[in-house]
């Protein structure tokens, strides 16, 4: 005996037809065989029907879709899915859903029906299915099968492409920064100041000058070339002197000295001149005996240093070089200034840059008494230091 069970909702009717099991006189006994199931949506002409296979697929699809709609997490397709599941549901947009069913006709045709549902119609379909599932008197073997989805199905909040963007942006910024920072040259590290800390030692200045000058033939002028060449050339252009004539000689000299390794800190003419200017306020040494002793020692110091510098080959300049030199009480050259153009150009041919010592603390007023000399380097190699009287200095300044 066939019997019909009907689940009626405002927007969906689900009818299940089947054979009664057991006592045929008891209308409440469950169905055993589903002959036909039909799903229709009042108000529309849409109608889906099929056998048990269709009903099972409908229940499964609708149930999973309802869960994904509730949670917002998409349910994965069945792992053991057959090529074309008989019933599918998919989003059309936020509030519309498409129900598609493929039924197999007895003659082999597989017509598919597509029905568009809104949220309320879909809910009624879900509710009809739920009522069928809850109904123990129709198909007790069909029950609600819902379980939370595993973590691995969780949809990331952002799509993968969107999540990759910040990472790529970060990496490309890093790469761009690396390229830009690669372009400027690596700053050259000059360890000289660290290697000769005793040079800055005021007390031992003289001893070092004397002791080292014997084994280090003033390589400083080579180093100096690079830094002072610009300065002296600029001055030379403005002074319109015979710079072109002098340059080759300077280069030769540099070549000569290139094989020496020892490096002595040197003071370029500009810094030395500034130092000299600062010293103009210092107390002059007035004691005649002291001045004479300083004069003699300065002359011999300079002569020794010049000999070392030129390696005994004699001076490399044609004109007398005249400098104003400030000297401390223990014959340390504290500053110098050229008095003629040749003196500026050929300053590297003299030992002055290497012998000059500028105190680190330049801001404080010099309290050490100084003496000033006019030092003349003759082309013949003679060095003459001549005392400059304080009165003359004042007039000159």
């Amino acid at each position, binding site marked *: 005996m066939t019997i019909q069970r009907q689940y009626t909702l*405002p927007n969906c009717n689900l009818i299940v037809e089947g054979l009664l099991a057991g006592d045929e006189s008891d209308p409440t006994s469950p169905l055993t065989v589903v002959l036909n199931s039909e799903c229709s949506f009042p108000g529309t002409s849409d109608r889906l029907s099929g056998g048990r296979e269709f009903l099972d697929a409908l229940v499964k699809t609708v149930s999973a879709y*309802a*869960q*994904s*709609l*509730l*949670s*917002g*997490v998409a349910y994965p397709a069945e792992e053991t899915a057959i090529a074309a599941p008989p019933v599918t549901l998919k989003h059309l947009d*936020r*509030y519309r859903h498409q129900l598609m069913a493929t039924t197999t006709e007895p003659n082999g045709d597989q017509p598919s029906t597509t029905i568009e549902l*809104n*949220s*309320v119609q879909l*809910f009624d379909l*879900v*509710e009809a299915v*739920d*009522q069928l*599932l*809850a109904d123990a008197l129709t198909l007790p073997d069909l029950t*609600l099968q*819902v*379980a*939370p*989805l*595993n*973590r691995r*199905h*969780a*949809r990331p909040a952002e799509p993968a492409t969107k999540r990759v963007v910040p990472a790529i942006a970060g990496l490309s910024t890093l790469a761009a920064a690396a390229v830009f920072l690669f372009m400027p040259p690596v700053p050259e590290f000059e360890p000289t100041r660290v290697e000769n800390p005793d040079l800055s030692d005021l007390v031992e200045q003289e001893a070092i000058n004397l002791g080292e000058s014997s084994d280090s033939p003033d390589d400083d002028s080579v180093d100096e070339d690079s830094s002072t060449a610009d300065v002296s050339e600029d001055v030379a252009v403005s002074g319109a002197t015979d710079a072109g004539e002098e340059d080759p000689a300077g280069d030769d000299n540099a070549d000569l000295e290139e094989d020496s390794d020892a490096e002595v800190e040197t003071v370029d003419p500009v810094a030395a001149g500034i130092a000299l200017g600062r010293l103009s306020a210092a107390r002059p040494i007035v004691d005649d005996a002291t001045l004479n002793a300083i004069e003699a020692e300065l002359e011999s110091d300079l002569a020794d240093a010049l000999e070392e510098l030129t390696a005994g080959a004699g001076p490399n300049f044609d004109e007398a070089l005249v400098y104003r030199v400030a000297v401390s009480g223990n014959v340390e050259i504290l500053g110098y200034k050229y008095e003629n153009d040749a003196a500026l150009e050929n300053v590297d041919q003299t030992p002055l840059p290497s012998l000059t010592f500028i105190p680190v603390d330049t801001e404080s007023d010099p309290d050490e008494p100084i003496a000033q000399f006019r030092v003349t380097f003759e082309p013949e190699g003679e060095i003459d230091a001549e005392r400059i009287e304080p009165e003359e200095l004042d007039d000159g300044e």
Partner: protein
Amino acid sequence: MQVDSPPALSSPSILETLPPPSLPSQDCPRRVRMDLDLLILAIESLDVSGSEALLKVSDQLGLQAVIPGRVQLWRIRSTNPMRRQSQRDPLSIDQAKALTLVICFLAKRLTVLIRQLLLGHQQLQDQNLSAEHHFRLGDYLSRFRTLFRARMNPKRAGVIAYSTDDKLNELALMLLTRLLFCTGTQGPQRLWNSLFDGEVV
């Protein structure tokens, strides 16, 4: 026999209808706390006396042990990380179950209204009209926006996403659809399981 302490409160049997999820920790994940509070917010937007009804229903369902009163309800709802006065307290599974049952119960009461609003929204969409053309729908949306903005911390990333009226309307309609699915025969089971989608191990 003398007892020194009152008998331990056993969790109400109605909670047994919802299976415990196999979570990595004993507390509810963040999304569960947010979803439950937002669903209640939607109920409050539908029904002005929603929070009163909520307490009454929890009494009717025998859930006093889990939701003893207004303060506890507020504390439970404040586990939503989006809230201004968000509590760091965890939300226990029993509390989440209780809220799920109460939400479904209240949603069932509001079935007619929920269906009306969703059908009305569908019609407005078909005619390309804005939600304000439907009086009750517009009312629901504006009340939801007001409640949301009053209670949620606008500096939170999750709240910033709903900074515009349109975004909030979308959220309100999404919650309305979820409430509709809660009204069904299997509403509590469906809602409960959907809460933990993508969270269980």
